[in-house]
């Protein structure tokens, strides 16, 4: 896993490929085309890229209107503004009528780093997940981000794609991607670790550390938070008898709660949620911020061990 590419960068590349394949695809941005990487698409397809200025509420509703005309709008800004500021527009004008709009929001999570807590969305998964009918996806690496973009273009309905600013390792292995189908990327009998996004890589490293202590961890990449792969979650929870969820998101409302919703009252097992512990983020180098909030491989390994 030598090469590091941010999922947002892969998103930009994927849009260009998608643009060539599907002329219905259009892209909207809110004055962040360089940061979100939709600027790459703009260079190739300038007449299919719409800068809506710093007006996110208007942007997502314009995307809603475009979708009713048969276009497939991919709409991007930072997760804080796309899922946060424009939340009610997404809820009422896109999800309620089940419009085919793809909300691809970058700079999610605390790995945003230096911009600080005001720009680190740690509640976007929670906000999007509670909306009826919303598909919610968090790719783990650049390859998965690309596959998710292509899958979403084929899927008819509202969807939220969570993308990261930070360049992160690209897996050597090529995993299949199907919306709603989790990928088991490591088998182990002692604990089922359900994770997503940048934390998948950290959890794989953590699993190696645990192995040295004789703890065998299954690592499951739950790239689709909604609809969640209940079958896989149930199977591995039963099989291992212990569950830990790890996400770069608040421990409230995200992957951890999605997993617990599946298991609650059905599977008896140890359960621990790891993530940002009901507090705001802060400025710092991404690696330092992740460490401050306990989301690096060695910290995750220690917490998994403590949970068993």
């Amino acid at each position, binding site marked *: 896993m030598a090469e590091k590419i941010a999922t947002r960068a892969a998103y930009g590349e994927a849009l260009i490929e998608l643009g060539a394949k599907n002329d219905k695809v259009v892209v909207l941005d809110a004055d962040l085309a360089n940061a979100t990487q939709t600027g790459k698409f703009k260079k190739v397809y300038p007449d299919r890229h719409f800068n809506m200025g710093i007006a996110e509420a208007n942007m997502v509703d314009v995307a809603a209107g475009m979708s009713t005309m048969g276009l497939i709008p991919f709409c991007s800004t930072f997760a804080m503004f796309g899922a946060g500021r424009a939340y009610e527009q997404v809820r009422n*004008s896109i999800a*309620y009528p089940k419009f085919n709009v793809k909300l691809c929001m970058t700079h999610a999570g605390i790995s945003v780093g230096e911009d600080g807590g005001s720009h680190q969305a740690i509640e976007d998964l929670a906000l999007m997940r509670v909306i009826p009918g919303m598909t919610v996806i968090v790719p783990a690496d650049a390859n998965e981000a690309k596959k998710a973009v292509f899958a979403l273009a084929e899927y008819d309905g509202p969807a939220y794609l969570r993308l990261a600013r930070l360049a992160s390792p690209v897996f050597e292995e090529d995993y299949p991607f199907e919306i709603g189908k989790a990928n088991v990327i490591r088998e182990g009998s002692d604990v089922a670790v359900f994770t997503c996004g940048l934390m998948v890589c950290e959890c794989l490293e953590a699993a190696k550390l645990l192995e040295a202590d004789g703890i065998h961890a299954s690592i499951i990449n739950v790239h689709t938070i909604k609809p969640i792969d209940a079958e896989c979650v149930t199977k591995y929870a039963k099989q291992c008898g212990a569950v830990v969820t790890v996400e770069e998101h608040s421990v409230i409302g995200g992957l951890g709660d999605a997993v617990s919703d599946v298991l609650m009252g059905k599977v008896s097992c140890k359960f621990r949620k790891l993530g940002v512990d009901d507090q705001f983020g802060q400025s710092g180098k991404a690696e330092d911020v992740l460490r401050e909030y306990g989301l690096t491989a060695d910290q995750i390994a220690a917490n998994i061990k403590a949970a068993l």
Partner: protein
Amino acid sequence: MTTQELEKFCAAVRRDIINMTANAGSGHPGGSLSAVEMMSAAFCTQMRVDPRNPRDPNRDRFVLSKGHAAPCYYGVLAELGFFSRDEFKNFRQLHSILQGHPDAKKVPGVDASTGSLGQGVSIAVGMALAAKHMGKDTKVFAMCGDGEAQEGQIWEAFMSAAHYKLDNLTVLFDNNGLQIDGSNDEVMSLGDLPAKLRAFGFDLIELPDGNDAAAVVEAMNRPIVPGKPRCILGHTVKGKGVSFMENQAGWHGKAPNEEQRAQALAELEGK
């Protein structure tokens, strides 16, 4: 459609509004009655729509940004034959296609789900922008209210309509001067609306009487100004056509009782 026919159509829609809200025991008659002429004129004299084929890809589009005027919208659509007037009795009831605010998934002829104020004009901008992008000659109409213009997003939408030179978009601005808590000026002054709308880049047509059907049609028939979105700012009367509702903020979101229904229908009879 002649002016006389349009006026008859408008009277029928007004009776629909009274019946729907009275049946439901709730709803928004005031802002529905003020919107009748502009909405009816758009559908009856301007728009290419086919009630038998509500999803016709070549249809023109209408977005009711002030979604609480749903009774007016449902009245217009039913009078045109998009669905049966029998549905009126189900307005605001469980399992009805006629939700309290328009639901695009449920009502034939409704293209956007609205009701949360400030969002519909943006959706209409998206439709008009997409039509331009796709090389279609689709005309898009959006109706907003004056109270609704207190939402900042309305102005974001206006800004983007001018930026993208959407001369296929007409905003029908229903300026009845009243909102739930009182007059616009008491609640939050809108200032010099004509000047603001012109400054935001509209081809503005101001109608001293937005409930004058002939004047509304005349405004809509004017040639478009290339590269400019149009706004028809109609000064209207909230509760128009029902004496005891006219210019009363209290009738924003209150249904007539049976006695009031009878009186209202009597006043609207034969118009």
